[in-house]
């Protein structure tokens, strides 16, 4: 099997380019298949990237993207010097970091707990039920929050009152907004989020558990020294992916949860971008695009940085 040395000896001294061309010609069918997604992605992913240039312009609908005059960093300066800039940035980071801190560990614990459940049947039941909320749409989810946290008829307040407490106005006071947003997200996503760790745990060598049990290790010790190290690569990758999106909250849920009382805490970059361009009386496309780009670039830097640190420290990276 010494394939690499064979070809150059006998082959006529044809140019590298010619040989490559022959290979390409032979695979024409594959290129034909690829042509459709390539053209598609060019149109729907790369053309909007070009559209980002309006962030550096003063875009006017009549003049189009090409015809509008350049404005340099004007739009970015406008955003940074805007009175709302700091508030929006803090809101975005607060909601996102809080979601990460509250939502990241629970699926891991859940997966470990489930993997050591003695009854297979009960494990499947728990999985079935806890995955379910993931499949509720955002609109239904927010409707559910509104119903269940209602001051007078909401289930949560009824339970609080039944236990002797007094009802809390979860939806009517801004101070509760972040908690409601984050913990409803945990309620909805923790079960489903555990799947990836359950599959990672299934890959942990059972002989390790066997040996440890024989040597007298307790369950707690086995979890700490076998399970956790076993799924550490998965945890790292998931963390990297989450860190990359620390600057993004996700438009759908927070936009639906916004109201006049919580707007000072619930206005994040995405909702701001949407409103400035599409619901404002004077739509400002360039400004909105600049705000969105500001977010995208920071996100990109975050992914690359966390990945770099992770590959240096633990050798688990995305690529």
């Amino acid at each position, binding site marked *: 099997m010494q394939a690499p040395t064979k070809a150059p000896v006998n082959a006529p001294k044809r140019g590298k380019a010619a040989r*490559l061309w022959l*290979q*390409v010609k032979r*695979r024409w*069918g*594959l*290129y034909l*298949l690829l042509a*459709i*997604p390539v053209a598609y*992605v060019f149109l*729907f*992913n*790369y*053309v*909007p*990237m*070009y559209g*980002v240039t*309006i962030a550096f312009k003063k875009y006017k609908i009549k003049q189009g993207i090409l015809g509008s005059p350049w404005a340099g960093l004007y739009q970015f300066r406008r955003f940074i010097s805007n009175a709302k800039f700091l508030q929006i940035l803090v809101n975005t980071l607060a909601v996102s970091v809080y979601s990460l801190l509250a939502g990241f560990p629970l699926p891991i614990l859940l997966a470990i*707990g489930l993997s*050591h*459940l*003695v009854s*297979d049947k009960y494990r499947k039941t*728990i999985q079935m*039920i806890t995955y*379910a*909320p993931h*499949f509720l*749409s*955002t*609109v*239904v989810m927010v*409707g*559910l929050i*509104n*119903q269940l946290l209602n001051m007078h*008829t909401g289930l949560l307040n009824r339970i609080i009152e039944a236990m002797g407490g007094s009802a809390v106005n979860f939806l009517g006071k801004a101070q509760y907004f972040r908690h409601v947003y984050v913990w409803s997200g945990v*309620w909805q996503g923790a079960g489903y989020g555990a*799947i990836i760790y359950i*599959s*990672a745990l*299934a890959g*942990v060598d*059972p002989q390790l*558990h*066997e040996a440890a*049990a024989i040597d007298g290790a*307790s*369950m707690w010790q086995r979890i700490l020294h076998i399970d956790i190290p076993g799924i550490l690569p998965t945890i790292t990758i998931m963390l990297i992916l989450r860190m990359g999106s620390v600057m993004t909250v996700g438009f*759908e849920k927070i936009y639906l949860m916004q109201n006049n009382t919580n707007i000072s805490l619930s206005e994040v970059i995405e909702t701001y971008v*949407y409103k400035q*361009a*599409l619901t404002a009386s004077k739509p400002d*496309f360039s400004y909105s695009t600049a705000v*969105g780009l500001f977010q995208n670039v920071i996100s*990109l830097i975050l*992914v690359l940085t966390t990945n770099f640190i992770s590959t240096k420290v633990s050798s688990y990276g*995305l690529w």
Partner: protein
Amino acid sequence: MAQAHPVHLKKKKLSMLGQPGDRSFHVVNLTLLTLFMLAVLYPLVYVVACSFSSAYAVITNQVWLWPVEFTLDGYKACLKHHLLMTGYLNSLVYMIFGTLVNIVLLVLAGYPLSRRDLPGKRGFIMFFTFTMFFSGGMIPNYLLVKDLGLLDNRLAMIIPFAFSCYNMIIVRTYFTTNVPEELLEAAQIDGSSDIHFFFRIALPLAKPVIAVMVLFHGIGHWNGYMRALLYLNSSSKYTLQLVLRDILLLSNMTTDMMAQLDDSALEEMQNAMQLIKYAVIVLGSLPVMILYPFVQKYFVKGMMIGSVKG
């Protein structure tokens, strides 16, 4: 995949064979998991119970677990809503055709990129993966749809932004691991072309991953509302989610809905609204929740395939 099960069973037995002190672990574990399950389950059961109760029972906090003063009033009122059925139909159409576009793109990109003998493969992969890290964003996307003349057009719900690089990588990995090299070699010796091989052999072998992708994308189309919010104006084209938003969150209820309920005094209407909202929550999630138990394992499978190579 095939080996995962026996390994798992073996581990289960090991869990039981632990130290004497492990009993406390199992008790704590079982209790916590059960509590979490109930915390997820109870609100869902409560909503269903409310939706079948009378408006009066709901507003006076009589419902805990079972419907009180059982009635279908809430549902009858919902069905009176002129847009709900339109929304259902629209969503169904957008979901079917939108998913079709997703799948075509996934396999057409995923298969060639799974082939080792594709010159320039690296370049193509970079071309696609770049979209994972950087995108135009909401406004440039909106302007593109606008420039293509697709605003307030049903096609805007189906055609644009249908390529998911993350899922393409899953499909590609599936092709790489499940279409044996020998099969390709044999077909090539027989003089079969790449296109022929793709349609006749590779694609049928990829049915499981395609099924998973249909579910992922199908549920995405069904549950998403942002695209409709951005690109649709006329209510006749609204998706179910936008209609639900109208009823649930903006409390836009038509008078014909209210007329369904016996008393039409203003206070009664407020009460009825609570009931209608519970019924709408159930109606809105019904299709997915009915299908969910049957397709659940495919979602899990999909997550597993995806986690093989993050």
